[in-house]
């Protein structure tokens, strides 16, 4: 092996350290360049967006927070802030002899040159004042008028807050709904948290005995709790009651309908298809009207049952049809091998469903059921049309109260905020679940 000597010291490859990335692609500058102004079109859009935000956000913040009224106990606390802009205005006019006069005006005083005696009409709040002499107009002065700065009157929401939440539920009994909803919520969180023992049992407790206990807590008449007629239930509590009852009742009915729809037996299949498609193709409000005006006709004469129960039946059936479609989706998503394996093990239909299919299908359906629940939660507002006092109805009643008239924006804003908080957090949870379930791919 010959060694060629080039007469130079052996070159050793020593890599130089990497150059840092161009300053324009990293850090704040890089972020702005790639996210806000990658090209002229996006730059223009960014400018437009910033202008739009400046037009929308400051007024909203001013109204809801900076100019808003938070403390007080009556309408009087919400007097709008009045700001008078006492700008000094100077204008010029021409006199009959052709000379020019100068007129100075502020919001409460007008100054004219000596020797001129015009009859000046002037009101303090006037936008415009005119200097006249002998029927001729010599000069016009304009002073800006009072500016009324309106802020939200949260005092109103504060005073009505209890009613928005509890409706007309008696004040000293309000711990009952609070306790039921609080405990229910804790149990739901427990049942949905991974890795806790007996989650299934808690879920079963929630679905079967809990609604009964909750009913007696709300209604009273047992264990020395005074009876509270359900006409007095209302507000956010009623919204939660209706939507929870609907989803709890809809689950078993919906599962049965979905199983029926996938059944091999034609009569059962067609019956289920008809029921599901009927309820899915009409608006919920028509179901509520049915429950209100037609249901009494369908039942034996003399049977009367109360408004809330009728609405609950209508809403539950309506939701059941949608639940059935969600369940069908879950059943279809299971690989066929699961059914075949269950059959191969010699399990009958009900055992196969109970032990193999439904536990898997229900698990993958949870995100869809949460979305469904969000829909019901929002749709519960429709019960105001049949005369129940849910959250939105309570807000409506409050804003039409003569003492607080004209505060509808505050009421609707609060109501929208409450719904947003509930629905947004549930939809985030549903998205989180979806991501978690998709890791298998």
């Amino acid at each position: 092996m010959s060694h060629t000597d080039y007469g130079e010291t052996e070159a050793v490859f020593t890599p130089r350290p990497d150059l840092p990335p161009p300053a324009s692609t990293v850090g704040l500058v890089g972020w702005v360049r790639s996210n806000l102004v990658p090209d002229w079109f996006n730059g223009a859009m960014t400018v437009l967006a910033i202008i739009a935000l400046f037009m929308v956000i400051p007024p909203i913040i001013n109204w809801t927070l900076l100019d808003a009224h938070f403390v007080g106990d009556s309408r009087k606390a919400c007097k709008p802030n009045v700001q008078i802009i006492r700008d000094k205005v100077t204008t010029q006019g021409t006199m009959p002899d052709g000379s020019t006069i100068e007129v100075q005006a502020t919001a409460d005083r007008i100054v004219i040159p000596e020797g001129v005696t015009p009859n000046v009409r002037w009101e303090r709040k006037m936008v415009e004042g005119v200097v006249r002499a002998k029927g001729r107009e010599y000069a016009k002065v304009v002073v800006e008028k009072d500016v009324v700065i309106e802020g939200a009157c949260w005092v109103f929401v504060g005073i009505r807050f209890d009613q928005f939440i509890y409706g007309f539920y008696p004040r000293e009994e309000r711990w009952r709904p609070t306790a039921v909803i609080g405990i229910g919520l804790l149990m739901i969180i427990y049942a949905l948290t991974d890795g806790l023992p007996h989650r299934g049992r808690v879920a079963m407790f929630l679905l079967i005995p809990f609604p009964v206990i909750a009913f007696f807590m709300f209604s009273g008449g047992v264990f020395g709790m005074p009876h509270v007629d359900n006409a007095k239930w209302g507000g956010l509590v009623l919204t939660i009651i209706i939507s929870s009852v609907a989803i709890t009742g809809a689950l078993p009915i919906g599962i049965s309908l979905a199983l029926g729809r996938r059944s091999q037996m034609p009569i059962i299949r067609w019956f289920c298809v008809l029921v599901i498609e009927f309820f899915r193709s009409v608006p919920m409000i028509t179901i509520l009207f049915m429950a209100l005006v037609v249901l009494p006709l369908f039942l034996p004469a003399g049977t009367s049952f109360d408004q809330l129960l009728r609405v609950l039946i209508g809403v539950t059936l309506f939701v059941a049809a949608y639940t059935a479609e969600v369940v069908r989706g879950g059943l279809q998503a299971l690989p066929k091998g699961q059914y075949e394996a269950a059959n191969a093990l010699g399990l009958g239909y009900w055992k196969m469903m109970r032990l193999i299919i439904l536990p898997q299908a229900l698990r993958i359906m949870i995100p869809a059921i949460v979305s469904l629940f969000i829909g019901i939660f929002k749709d519960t507002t429709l019960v105001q049309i049949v005369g129940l006092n849910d959250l939105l109805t309570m807000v409506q009643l409050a804003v039409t109260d003569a003492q607080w008239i004209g505060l509808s924006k505050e009421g609707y804003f609060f109501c929208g905020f409450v719904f947003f908080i509930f629905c947004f957090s549930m939809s985030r949870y549903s998205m989180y679940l979806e991501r978690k379930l998709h890791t298998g791919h």
Partner: protein
Amino acid sequence: MAVAEGGVKPGKASLLYDARVRAIIYQVVMAGAVVFFFAWLTVNTIDNLEKRGIASGFEFLNHPAGFGVPFSLIEYTEASPYRTVFILGVLNTLFVSAVGIVLATLLGFTLGVMRLSKNFLISRIAAVYLETFRNIPLLLQILFWYIGVLQLMPQQRSSIIFFENVFINNRGIFYPAMQAESGFMAVPIAFVIGILATIVLAKWVKRRREKTGQGFPTIWAGLGLIFGLPILAALVTGLPWTWSLPRLQGFGFKGGSVIIPEFLALLLALTIYTAAFIGEIVRAGIQAVSHGQTEAAHALGIKPSTTLRLVIIPQAMRIIIPPLISQYLNLVKNSSLAPAIGYPEMTQVWAGTVLNQSGQALECMAMVMGTYCLISLSISGVMNWYNSRVALVGR
């Protein structure tokens, strides 16, 4: 293990354990229960109707309605029979739904594309919009627009005026109306001819492209035909219309046309609410098209705008259309929230006013629900037809 010679004869089990026999028994029981249930309902209903002295039947459709309606697409007076009211209600439902669907689609697609924009601000703004309006009940939004915004507009005397002839106040938007004169029919006829010509042109362009590979600006030519021909027709016939301008006279506006606030509130709320859902659907649809498609198109040398139009969107549409149609269906069904503000659509006039006036609860509800079923079935029919057309053909 000993096996009996000649195979095992199945033991004579009770017929009850035969799956087929069981299926028949289940179904007979089910059918019996359903028939019994409906028979029970019918008997109760007949009994109840007799006790209340209500004559069932559709006789009442011919009786005069006797109430006024603030908004109608057809000729209607208080003397018109109930059946006219029903048609009026159905048309109003379809009208607000159709306008709402068009606007919600436009707004929704814009939002969906904005949500995917690389521009941070634009994408954030779209996200805030989608999350906010999806999570607030529609009824609340309708009431907000009606009570919180439109009813707080100025009185008629101090209307907000645009272009001297458009007046906005708490009674609605008053705008100039076109009144046709003789020869006006030429314009709609030209419009129809324009549409037909565009269809023919599109077919010709497609055939030519398949044969020669040459392109053609079909969209611009089509737009030119559809809008150019009517304009030409109008110019040739000498602008055959006059304008009726709204003017304040006495206590109200005379002349022109008006968009009532009830319609506007319902339309705004339906559009804004549904657009939020459509935006999510569009975003998900475009994101579902694999990035490899874009890269492959770029590798073929197709420029970005053409890639979007010919590669991404057609594939995204296949995912977008089914949920989009079900949003349209929701919009139609949601238009039934009108009773809250009094826009005279089907539910408001028929399940509300007429039902209370005539007392024919069963007939009224059956008609309303039947119509909704019919609308829903037609829309899902369209969806199934489209699905079968665009479904991937397995080779």
